Structure formats: C-alpha cells, structure tokens
C-alpha cells in the first residue's frame, strides 16, 4: 500500500506481464509429472521398456538357438561356469551365416522361402549384426535346459516376443471394439443406448472361458483349419486375438460409455455440432481423444488379463503351437515335468518369474497411470 496510486492501465499491464511469466501445463505433462513421482510405477515402466527392447531385438543378443535340440543335456541344471562359450553352429569362423541352420535353429525363414516376410528379414539382419559383434560367442545355459536339451534362457527371450505381442494385439483389438461400441452407445443415448447396454449385460453373464474352450476345440478340427488357412489364417494365435478381443471389450465399453455420457454435455461438443460435424466425426475426433487417459489405463489393466488367459489356454494345450513358444507354454512345460525323481525347479521358476514380473509391472503401471491421470480416483 506504499505505492503511489496506479492507473487501471498500469495495473492491467502488470497483471499481463505476470500472466506471461506463468507457464501453462497440459494435462499430459501434468500427469507425467505426477507419474514421475510414483516410484513403483516408474520402476515398472523402466522394466517394461527393458523387456520390450529385449524382446524386440532378441536375435541380437548372444543367446543359444531356441530350437536347438540336444538330448545329451536334457534337464541340465543352470550353469554359469563358463558364462560364455564359443560354440555356435550356425555361423562359421569367417562369420558367414548358414541360412538353413538358422531356419532350423531359430525358426527364421531363409530369404528364398516364399513365405519369408519383412519380419524374417529384420531378424536375419539382427543375426548378421550379432555375428559381426559377438562372433561365435554365446551364453551358457544360465537358466538350465528343458526336456529336449533346449536352452531355457533363449526360449524365454523368444517366448517374450510372442507373449508380449499376444498381450498387446489382443488388448488393442479389445480396445478398438470397446471404445467404438461404448462411445457410440453413450453418444447416441436413449433407446439405442439402453439396447446396446442390455446386450453388454447379456454378454457379461456368459462364462466365456468355457465357450472359448469349445470354440478353439472346433477351430482345431483339421477341416476347419484348412478352411481358415484359405482365408490366410495359419495360426491359432491369430484366432486368439479375435476371440480375446471379442471378450475383453465389455468393461472398456461400459467405462467409455459412462465417460461419454458426461462429456457430451460439454460445450466443445456443442460447438462441433454447431459448425456441422456429423456424428461419426464428433465421436471419433472430438470425444475419443478426451477419453485417452481412461483408455490407456484400462489397456494396461487388460493386457495382464489377456496374457494370463493365454497362459491358461497354453496349459490346456490350446494356446501357442509348437515350435513357437510363449511364457505360458514354457511355464506349462515346467509344471508338466515335475516328478519325484528329479526336481527341475528352474523350468517352473524362470518362466513363472518372467510372466509374473511382467504382469506385476503392468499392474503397477496401470495403477500408477490411473492415479496420475485422474487424481480424484486415487484411493478409491
């Protein structure tokens, strides 16, 4: 109050200068700041990042070949002495790579195979790079060997690729279905909405696991399989994506619908309607981006459930087909091999650890994201 009286213009100029100093923050940045303070979620994020990188560049690491059968060391215990050996068979001393050996030992198709695609080319490049970096060195069986003498560590890495892809793709399929369904239902409202939600209620009360078991049994029939492969579906995993996507979208649809119901009263939706946007544009361009936070949270919580379901199907022998591996398949092989004669704990423990730690991390990340994106939901 000691200042000389200021004119209104000066006062506003000062306010303006002050306002310019304040930096606004976007919702995303704000959430990221909160997430960074959550130590468990950040560790989980870092771990998942490492696992993802590890799985993506699997052929680059100096691991043994995942399909190399060596009956002389069946059920061999983990060994660390020596940690690395110069024993690769698919690469010679000059560094040349034997394509046939690679396709047998790694399941990477040779370049002249008509079925070889961009992913095989990517893997081959990585293998070549590995040959250049590590030469003939490869890790010893740090995690032991399975009943055919295959190296468990290598199989864990190759299994990570399939397990993660299964979780991601099936999660995305369920997300696309759930979000479109929920957003449409919520935005249209009225009779359509209540009809669509009744349908979801019916689906909710069906125990899908049993229906899926029945479905996969039917799809496994040789004749159906032949029919499917004429559609380009070679693999049970492809079917799995659709089946899981078709089941796990229900919760997502409900949540999204609830959110849309409140969002559609907002002024930006009205504004969009005023300038003549059609319904589809409003739903998918104006409403869905505003749902992103909730969608991401539910995605991180759906992926673990999907991966567990894959493990369950693998246990029933209905999951990923040999010679492909997933963590579920490995854990199942481990459980099957438990006998009183020899306790091959590594065959159960390591796949269990891989699966468990990843699902742990996903759950922590999901919880952290939920708290970060919507602090009001915290502790609920």
């Amino acid at each position, binding site marked *: 109050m000691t200042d000389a009286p200021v004119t209104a213009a000066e006062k506003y100029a000062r306010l303006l200068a002050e306002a310019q100093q304040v930096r606004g923050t976007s919702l995303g940045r704000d959430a990221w700041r909160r997430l960074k303070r959550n130590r468990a979620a950040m560790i989980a994020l870092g771990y998942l990042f490492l696992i993802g990188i590890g799985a993506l560049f699997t052929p680059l690491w100096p691991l043994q070949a995942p399909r190399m059968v060596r009956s002389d060391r069946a059920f061999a215990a983990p060994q660390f002495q020596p940690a690395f050996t110069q024993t690769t068979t698919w690469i010679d001393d000059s560094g040349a790579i034997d394509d046939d050996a690679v396709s047998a030992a790694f399941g990477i198709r040779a370049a002249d195979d008509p079925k070889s695609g961009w992913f095989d080319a990517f893997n081959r490049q990585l293998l070549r790079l590995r040959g250049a970096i590590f030469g003939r060195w490869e890790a010893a069986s740090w995690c032991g060997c399975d009943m055919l003498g295959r190296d468990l560590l290598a199989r864990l890495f190759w299994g990570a690729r399939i397990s993660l892809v299964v979780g991601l793709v099936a999660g995305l399929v369920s997300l696309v279905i759930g979000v479109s369904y929920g957003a449409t239902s919520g935005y249209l409202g009225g009779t359509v909405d209540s009809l669509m939600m009744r349908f979801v209620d019916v689906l909710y*009360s069906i125990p899908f696991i049993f*229906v899926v*078991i029945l479905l996969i049994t039917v799809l496994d029939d040789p*004749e159906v399989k032949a029919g499917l492969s004429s559609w380009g579906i070679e693999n049970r995993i492809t079917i799995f994506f659709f089946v899981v996507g078709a089941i796990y979208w229900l919760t997502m649809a409900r949540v999204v619908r609830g959110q849309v119901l409140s969002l559609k009263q907002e002024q930006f939706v009205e504004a969009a309607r005023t300038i003549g946007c059609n319904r589809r544009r409003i739903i998918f361009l104006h409403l869905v981006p505003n749902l992103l936070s909730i969608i991401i949270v539910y995605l991180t919580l759906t992926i673990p459930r999907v991966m567990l379901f894959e493990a369950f199907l693998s*246990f029933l022998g209905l999951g990923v087909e040999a010679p492909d591996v997933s963590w579920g398949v490995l854990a199942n092989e481990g459980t099957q091999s438990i006998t009183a004669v020899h306790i091959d704990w590594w065959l159960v423990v390591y796949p269990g650890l891989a699966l*468990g730690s990843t699902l742990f991390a996903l759950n922590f990340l999901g919880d952290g994201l939920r708290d970060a994106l919507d602090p009001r939901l915290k502790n609920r």
Partner: protein
Amino acid sequence: MIAYLLRRALWTLSVLWVVFTLSFLLMNAVPGRPFGGDRGMDPEIEKIFRARYHLDEPIYVRYGYLLTDYLRGDFGISKTLRDFSINEIIAQGLPVSATLGLLALLFALTFGIIAGIASAVRRGGLVDHSLMAVATVGIALPEFVVAGLAIIMFVFILPWFPSAGWGSLRHLVLPVVCLGLPYAAYIARLTRSGMLDVLSQDYIRTARAKGLAPSTILTRHALKGSLLPVLSYIGPATAGILTGSLVEEKIFAIPGLGIHLVESVFQRDLTLAMALTMLYTVILCLMNFIVDVLYKVVDPRIKLDA
C-alpha cells in the same frame, strides 16, 4: 420380491439359452460333419451317435431334439468314453469337483474375512502387507505355476503332503489352498477396505460412546456392513474357482469334472465338452442368482429392479 425373483429367473434362463445356442452352433460348425471329425471314431459308437443325435435330420430339427434332451436333464453320450453316458460321468465327477470348489470357496471366505478384519484393525501391520503381497501374486501368476511351485515346496522339498490323488483329507489341502488363496487374499482386501469404511461411520462412534467392547462393535455392528463388497465378489470368485478347478484337477490328478472337460477338449469330444460347458454355466448362473438375492436380503437399501 416375488416379481423380482421371477424376472431374475427369466433373465438367468435366457442367458442359459444363449449359451446353449452358441455351443450348439459351434458344435455344428464343422461343415458336413456335425460334432467334429469322424476320423478314428469307433464304428459302433458312430452308429449309436447317428441314431442318438439324429444326424440325418436337418440342423433345426436336431436343435429341437437336443434342446428337449437338455431340458429333460439328459446330456447324451460321449464320443470317447463308450461305457458311460454323460450323465454317469457327471454323477461321478460332480461330487468331487463340488467338494473341491466349495471347500476352496469356504476357505477363501473364512480366511479372507478373518484376515481382512485383522488387517483393518491393525492397519499397516505385517498381516496387511503380506495380504497385499499374496493378492498381487494371485493377479500376476497363473494358477498352474502357483500349484507347481507349491508341489515343489510342500511335496518334494518338505514332504508334508501327497503330490496327487483324492480320498483323504491330506490330499485336499494343497489343491484347496492353491485354488482358494488368491481369492482369499482379494476377499481380505475387500473386507479390509469395507471395514475401514464402516469403522469411520457415525453409528460406530455412537456404539463406542455407549461403552461397548471393541470386539462387540466389530462383530455386531461393523461386520455386516463391511461384507457387502465381499458378497458381490462371490459371483466373480465362483467363476474364477470354476476355471481354476480345471487346472488344479489336472495338476493334482483329481477325478472331477474339470479333468473330463480338459480331456474332452484334447479328444475333440464335443458332446461331452458341450454338456460340461452347460453344466458349468448353470452352476455359475445359479451362484449369481443366489448372490443377487442375498445382496437384497443383506442390504435393504438396494432397489428391486433387475
């Protein structure tokens, strides 16, 4: 109340009908060969099959026949087990599976509720943290891995229990605990949060002010209110225990229904698989029905519309 019960029963029946129709369509999905491949099928069984399931009739007639059979409680015959009708298989396996499942559910409820109350009373203590850990393990590890680790631990390293089989109490311990423990942990966490919620209510303060003993407040005043979330979790828990029992029965070699379902899938025995699917669905729907009604009984504030 009666109108509500009727509406709820109608709803349950329509869900059952949907599952039946879905399963029937799936069974007939293989073109030209209803119920999957004939390859390797015992010719005698095949003959009986043709007659029994009216395979020469068009599909909608067969649908009618099968539906009436199911409604009469006749589940037909199996493709692989030639000396048994499916009803006999169920009669043998159901008591075993039901024992396993009910014990696991009972274990989950009693252990979960007691542990939940304990951890609510001593918040942040050892019980609280270990429950959290068990619950997260249940979320993150498939049942068969848990069971495998339990076998290694308590059968081979510490020879306390038999590894497999059925018949004595000692056979029951591992499968029941493995099956129920994740749900027990989850129920404990539900009870805990419900309990904490209730304990901060005014009427609890009133009870305390009247000078009631803490144990009386817990059991008489707080418990009922804090069990509502647990009650609504019984439905999902039953679903989980039903699927989990498939796994436990296979691992611990228990002669229940689950093992027949697993086997029927391997053998592509679709009639048996469908009958068991329907049976599991009926059990689940019944459980949900009971829970809904109980919910209404426990909490009169809940409105009576389906």
